[in-house]
């Protein structure tokens, strides 16, 4: 379980997040939604320890998050990862990165690690790309390889920041279908996303964020009033009744 209490965060006097209280239970497929600048990615970065926590607390499995992160790997797919497209790494090298922290300083990867990395690539249906240079992969292929890296350590938490950003519509659908499979296999999936239609189809729990928390509830309990509060009056809600 991830438990956030009284979290506020600001940069240069500008409030990004204000008084956030949130609990995410194990096994959920959580979507964090909100307009641009709502603090969604910042919230993820605080949970993952990329940003220092100025106030409030974050606990993972009852342990302060930074202590937990030192001991446990966590699967993370960033919104945009800075790297040189000509960097001489293969897809397999990239996935092995997810296991690097398990090895002592200076130790080399062994066959056991390579097999685990290949298994992760198999899970994301990219095993055939293992030896390909990362610069030759398409956006969708790269996203699946990054997902394999997030999975290789077998963390029970999988955290994704706008995974659909570099995918087309069919790519997004198949990517979220894969996430659902992983969720059904026991992973807690937390994703930031703008694609409300896809989210409503796949996610079980919705966190509506716009600087403050406007809801954190089961997806089917979110109504138009909450959406208006989150996105402002400009949003047009089309309710579907299947």
């Amino acid at each position, binding site marked *: 379980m991830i438990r956030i209490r009284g979290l506020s965060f600001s940069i240069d006097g500008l409030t990004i997040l204000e008084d956030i209280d949130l609990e995410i239970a194990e096994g959920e497929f959580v979507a964090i939604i909100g307009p641009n600048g709502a603090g969604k990615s910042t919230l993820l970065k605080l949970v*993952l*320890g*990329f940003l220092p926590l100025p106030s409030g607390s974050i606990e993972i499995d009852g342990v302060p998050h930074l202590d937990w992160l*030192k001991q446990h*790997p966590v699967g*993370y797919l*960033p919104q945009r*990862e*800075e*790297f*040189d497209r*000509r*960097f*001489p*790494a293969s897809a397999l*090298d*990239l996935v092995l*990165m*997810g296991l*690097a*922290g*398990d*090895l002592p*300083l*200076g*130790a*080399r*990867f062994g066959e056991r690690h390579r097999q685990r990395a290949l298994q992760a690539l198999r899970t994301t249906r990219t095993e055939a790309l293992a030896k390909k*240079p990362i610069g030759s992969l398409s956006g969708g292929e790269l996203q699946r390889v990054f997902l394999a890296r997030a999975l290789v350590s077998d963390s029970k938490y999988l955290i994704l920041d706008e995974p659909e950003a570099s995918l087309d519509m069919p790519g997004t659908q198949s990517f979220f279908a894969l996430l659902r499979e992983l969720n059904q296999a026991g992973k807690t999936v937390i994703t930031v996303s703008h694609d409300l239609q896809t989210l409503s189809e796949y996610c079980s729990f919705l966190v509506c964020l716009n600087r403050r928390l406007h809801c954190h509830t089961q997806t089917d309990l979110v109504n138009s009033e909450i959406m208006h509060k989150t996105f402002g009056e400009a949003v047009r809600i089309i309710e579907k009744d299947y």
Partner: protein
Amino acid sequence: MQFYGFLLTAVLAAVLSSVSLALFSPFVTLRRISYLGEALSHIAFAGIAFALLLGWNLHWTTLVFVVLVSLAISWLAKRHKLAEANAITIFLSVSMALGIVLISLRNGYNFDLASYLFGNVLLVSQAELWQLGGLVTLNLAFIAGLYKELFYLSYNAEMAQFYRLPANLVNRLFMILLAANIVINLRAAGIILVSAQLILPASTAFNLVRRLDHAVLCSALLAIFAAVAGFALSWWLDLPTGASIVLLEFVLYLASLSWRGLAPK
């Protein structure tokens, strides 16, 4: 006989100097911090001036000075949210100015500035040759011992840290060793030309090979070739050795561009 001993020392100095810088070259190139190599070599000028003014050991004083300034650059960039490139430019210019002022204070001191600006392998002593040998060994041990960490640090330092690699520690060791490489190579390679030998071998290697470990090996081999051939050319044509080696490395780089153009995609 003494003449051949002198010649051998000079050739070995050229080779060891070029190889030590070439081993670091792929990491400097991939991390896009070649400007830092340029800056540290200029910052070393102020360190040399301090050592001369105070009569202290030249190498150690310069090394400590360069390491302290490189740490100050990181601190200033972080503390005052100054772009690192700007902080480096400030320290580079101020160090050069400081060096000139300090040297001018030593009235009547006969300082061979040109040999430090452009390097001269013919002036390398036996003791300095051993230092260069030690440096190559240290570089090899560092790269072989921490290859995995250096690989992912070069890919993306923030993500390397996230995946629980000791990126900050390895980065600090990298910076200290980079500073040591620049300072120890000043006599052989020169303030102006040392950074060229940090960039060119790997830029050429990455046009020829596709793996980082192959690029490290390829850079070292290219550097050996350029050092021996550059030395021979400079000897026969009576040209400055450091400049000849750099020009030869550049010719190899141009040749590698043509190779890349011909190579299958």
